[in-house]
């Protein structure tokens, strides 16, 4: 197996991975940086983010308000030291991006423009039309091209971390186009592998979001934190799951049920605001968890509209007018038109909540370091505890930047004090990957198919680990996922060739998703309260006495995982009531 020596290896070239790579290259031009990604960087799913990125920039706004919005939005499960650091770094990072050429929308005077977003008390979301993530990703990618020290390994599928002497010192990966295995020996590893929404059948997430990074760290001994918090986005297309950005509501779109009633007022987000005059932090601009939950209640009450694609509610943007829609929401119009055949200028669009984002992930601290020395993580795959129990729209894109950079700086600090590697030990470790892959290739007896298992996993997750959860459902889910993990060991490849074998990659991805699904379900079963995106019908109240803490799930091989807890860091905001009544409590 060919060995590649490098200083820092980054797994993932989405927003977080690219930001980390640039920070490394800028801070120390002599560093050798390996940027490893299973897709070309600009294909990473950051490109799909539409709405925008939050950072305090306007005079009427303040760090404190951004802090309060984030902590309250996260239902007090955020670590407040982390949020503090984040809100201060956010505008710097967004300005940096501006200096690198990101085409942010502007005010007539040439300053950047901001838009309102769900759960935010002030307008502070920077946006580039409704292609914000796309522009961020391409700006980062193109900027990264000027650094020769960033060596890209495009279409390399990362498999396992190399751990020796209690430190993470590299990884194994497969060159997807030759099918050959490589080992990267690195003095520090940063995982920026993105989310895992593909565990669910209806999701805004792209095909690549299979939680490989999370699973890799998990298998190597790093705990996964708060995995039970899975965000549903209230407005997804019912057939493809494609997202209609929150900006639809930010710009003034309204949600109505089959009687034409703006039902959010019935779920603690009222009273009704005038149509076309969205008010921050209330009604349609409530937080995602609440708005998605309201859909579920409407569904129970039979207030949803029956469409060929299932039960839906309606997102009405007609009153915004053609001009504003074309100017601010062109992508939304295009998506609804082509995939659903609905012109938002003329008709309301049927929508439903779809899985969108993983609040949980590889446990990291405010320095972006995991408990496993030498391993750092940033972006959606990490849980730095910024988002708590519910992420506010437009905080994630900034998180990529802030903690992508932070991970890079921490990695440099770590490198300075690490001893030399024991190459032989790392090679022995890498051999295990080789054996795993060989075993997979040589297995012939078996009846399980990837597509079949994947489908069962998705159905289980949708049924039992969705917007509302129960003890019985979760128990069934835990058992089912456990069973699927066992059956996974009998999966047989149909394709045993080497070059660009997507049958193989889908098999590996399924393995990652099952690992993540395990952490989600056991975490959810153990958390006997309702908080943010985790809602239990049997425990409808938040329980700060027992659960104001993070779930930590540890991998135990084939056995059931071990659960532990970690206290939430509280500096100045004590748990309170999440108020989205627009001050009409």
């Amino acid at each position: 197996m060919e060995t590649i020596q490098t200083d820092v290896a980054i797994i993932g070239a989405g927003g977080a991975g690219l930001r980390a790579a640039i920070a490394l290259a800028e801070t120390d031009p002599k560093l050798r940086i390996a940027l490893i990604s299973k897709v070309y960087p600009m294909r990473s799913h950051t490109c799909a983010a539409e709405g925008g990125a939050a950072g305090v920039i306007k005079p009427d706004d303040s760090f404190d308000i951004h802090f309060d919005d984030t902590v309250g939005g996260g239902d007090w499960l955020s670590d407040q030291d982390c949020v503090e650091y984040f809100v201060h770094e956010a505008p710097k990072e967004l300005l940096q991006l501006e200096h690198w050429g990101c085409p942010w929308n502007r005010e007539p005077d040439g300053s950047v423009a901001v838009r309102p977003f769900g759960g935010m008390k002030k307008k502070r979301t920077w946006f580039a039309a409704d292609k914000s993530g796309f522009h961020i990703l391409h700006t980062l990618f193109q900027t990264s091209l000027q650094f020769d020290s960033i060596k890209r390994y495009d279409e390399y599928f990362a498999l396992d971390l190399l751990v020796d002497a209690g430190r993470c010192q590299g990884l194994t990966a497969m060159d997807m186009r030759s099918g050959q295995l490589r080992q990267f020996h690195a003095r520090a590893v940063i995982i920026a592998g993105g989310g895992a929404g593909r565990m669910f059948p209806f999701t805004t997430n792209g095909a690549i979001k299979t939680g490989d990074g999370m699973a890799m760290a998990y298998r190597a001994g790093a705990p996964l934190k708060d995995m039970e918090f899975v965000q549903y986005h209230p407005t997804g297309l019912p057939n493809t799951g494609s997202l209609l950005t929150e900006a639809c509501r930010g710009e003034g779109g309204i949600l109505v049920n089959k009687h034409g009633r703006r039902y959010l007022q019935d779920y603690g987000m009222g009273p009704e605001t005038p149509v076309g005059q969205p008010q921050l932090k209330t009604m349609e601009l409530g937080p995602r968890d609440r708005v998605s939950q309201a859909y579920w209640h409407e569904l129970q009450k039979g207030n949803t509209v029956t469409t060929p694609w299932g039960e839906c509610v309606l997102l009405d943007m007609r009153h915004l007018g053609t001009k504003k829609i074309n100017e601010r929401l062109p992508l939304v119009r295009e998506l609804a038109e082509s995939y659903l055949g609905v012109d938002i200028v003329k008709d309301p669009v049927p929508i439903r909540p779809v899985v969108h984002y993983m609040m949980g992930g590889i446990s990291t601290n405010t320095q972006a370091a995991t408990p496993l020395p030498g391993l750092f993580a940033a972006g959606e795959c990490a849980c730095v505890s910024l988002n708590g129990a519910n992420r506010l729209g437009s905080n994630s894109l900034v998180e990529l930047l802030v903690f992508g950079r932070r991970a890079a700086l921490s990695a440099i600090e770590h490198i300075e004090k690490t001893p030399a590697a024991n190459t032989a030990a790392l090679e022995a470790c890498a051999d295990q990957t080789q054996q795993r892959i060989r075993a997979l290739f040589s297995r012939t007896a078996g009846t399980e198919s990837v597509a079949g298992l994947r489908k069962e996993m998705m159905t289980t997750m949708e049924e039992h680990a969705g917007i509302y959860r129960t003890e019985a459902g979760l128990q069934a889910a835990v058992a089912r996922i456990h069973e699927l993990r066992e059956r996974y060991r009998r999966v047989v490849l149909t394709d045993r060739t080497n070059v660009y074998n997507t049958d193989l990659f889908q098999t590996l991805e399924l393995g990652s998703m099952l690992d993540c699904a395990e952490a989600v379900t056991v975490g959810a079963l153990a958390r006997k309260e309702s908080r943010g995106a985790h809602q239990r019908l049997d425990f409808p109240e938040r329980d700060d006495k027992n659960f104001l803490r993070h779930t930590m799930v540890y991998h135990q091989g084939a056995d059931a995982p071990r659960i532990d807890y970690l206290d939430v860091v509280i500096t100045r905001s004590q748990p309170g009531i999440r108020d989205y009544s627009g001050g009409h409590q």
Partner: protein
Amino acid sequence: MSRKPLIREVPPTTWYFRHPRYLRYMSREITSLFVGAYCVLLVCGLGALADGKESYEAFLLALQSPLSIAFHVAAFIAALYHATTWFNATQVAMPIQIGENFVPGSWISGAHYVVWALLSVVVILLAGVF
């Protein structure tokens, strides 16, 4: 085994049969043959004019042969085709931004067509067709 990418060569002499839009492109380009030849013919006419009345009138008479008629029809069509493709293309090559927005391309081509029509009428009047 490892990579062995398949290279599919482009047939250098027949590629334009692959897609109607390539044929349209080639027909646009091929107008140059007719226009060029036509210009050479005009130069000859100029030569005849310089040689005196007789040779000029002989030239005009020679233009009336069937071959010449066919050629003229071809050249005229070619020139027309060239003109339309050219006017439609100027908006692409030279977009104009007034205020924030770009002037719609159809306006730019439209303006060209108007000028073209005026110029043609002037030339026709000068030539004393009517």
